[in-house]
């Protein structure tokens, strides 16, 4: 099992969700985040002071999947999020030791879906 963490542009979330659904992946957890990367920030001008803002709004998606789902998930995220512009984002893949469904107490692969 793997835990996939994707950081994408906020406005691509609907597209990513759609792509994931097409790939039959319907469960995920989303948080909002601020990202610092290659993408340039923007300048803020407030009361005569100009400042570069480097922390840009990002959406962070966490998806736990069984190993055979890793590839389709990654593909779907890329399909939904890619625009070929800097700032499109990153995906991180972590090993998942265990997964438990609180409602039933199921564990492992069964609990993921």
């Amino acid at each position: 099992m793997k835990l996939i963490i994707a950081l994408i542009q906020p406005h691509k979330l609907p597209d990513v969700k759609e792509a994931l659904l097409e790939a039959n992946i319907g469960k995920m957890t989303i948080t909002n985040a601020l990202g610092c990367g290659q993408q340039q920030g923007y300048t803020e001008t407030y009361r005569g002071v100009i400042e570069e803002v480097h922390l840009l709004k990002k959406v962070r998606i966490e998806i736990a999947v069984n190993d055979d789902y890793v590839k389709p998930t990654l593909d779907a995220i890329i399909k939904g999020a890619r625009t070929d512009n800097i700032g499109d984002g990153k995906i991180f893949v972590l090993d998942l030791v265990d997964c438990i469904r609180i409602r039933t107490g199921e564990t492992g692969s069964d609990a993921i879906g």
Partner: protein
Amino acid sequence: MFNKIKKFLLMPALIVGMLVFASYAHAEDSLATNIADMTSSINTIWVLVAAFLVFFMQAGFALVETGFTRAKNSVNIIMKNAMDFCFGSIAFYFIGYALMFGADKAGLIGTTGFMLSAAESTSSWHYTFWLFQCVFAATAATIVSGAMAERTRFSSYLVYSVLISAFLYPISGHWIWGTGGWLATAGFVDFAGSTAVHSVGGWVALMGAMMLGPRIGKYGKDGSSRVIAGHNIPMAALGVFILWFGWFGFNPGSTLSGMDLSIAHIAVTTNLSAAAGAISAMCFVWLKFGKPDLSMTMNGALAGLVGITAGCANVSPLSAIIIGTIAGILVVMSVEFIDKTLKIDDPVGAVSVHAVCGSFGTIAVGLFAQEGYGSGVKGLFFGGGLTQLITQIKGVVAVGAWAMVGGIIIFTILKKTIGLRVSAEEEIKGLDIEEHGMEAYAGFQVFMTE
């Protein structure tokens, strides 16, 4: 204020003096002068207070429009609302007022009184009248920003706001309220401006929203309408309360006289129609969509207010309730029609509230006007036959056509020159950051997914 102190001390003296003086012969003349002075004071105070209340409606519009749109465009929409008033005031001072209330030319336009030149002394009634008319002009201008929210270029909007306050609004305003205006002469009744103010703003708004096209994400690939929820509903609701509050200046103040005791009657019809509008919109939405939607209910209250504005002096309280009730239902149907059938994206329902209910309200005068109320005109339901009704419809159509044509011309020119709409990227990131370089809610975690 040194002056003030003098006055403050002089007052008792004045009173004593007056008493003494009055006991002599020929006192009547002086008393009559006093009475005339007091009448002027009463009128001035009343109309000024009303103007202040109408000014405050600017805050109401700003809050409603901000609350019903997304956080990322809040700074922008507030700037638009504030600046259309500022530019509008200046434009109305230099040009608009003269075109609207100057000496008539062919029933079409006023020609004198630029820069308040008609006011010869500081005690001139022109000052009072100007302020009241200026905040009216600004109301017409500000209506448009709501329908064009979240995608209009800021500089374009500024140009538009000068043009509406300087030309578009004053000219049709002259027709209706100018001495010698052709609609005024024809007997058209629009007491406080359902047509002169609200529907002018509303029709221009319709043109603007149409020419801009919908916000990104407003319609799905299949053309289905989607929810773009407002980000601060309590703020929007406060805006509606402020508008309602301000409307007590808008309608009763339009007597332009505090000596006219019908101000109270007008305040009552205004209040009852607003209440009825909110109730009917809420019930209608509840039946139709299963839940009492706050944003539609608020639109309903505004619909009731706009609806009664033309006839507030001419109809009975019961008729006001009926007018408000119809307006409340109309606004819901109109919002749906414009959104789902016409597929024109009006984020706050400005067109439905101001153009549709404004037109309805004006026509309603031809139906509900009653003898014994206001100017004494009689509508269809109260023995007046079709005469008034036809006049009303004529006015609605003429002014509507004027506003729409004017709107198209202004927006087409802007589109061809400065450009009317921001870039897609800017729209997605939010106009606040791109146009103004700042966020409305720094520090808050705001989710922006479209």
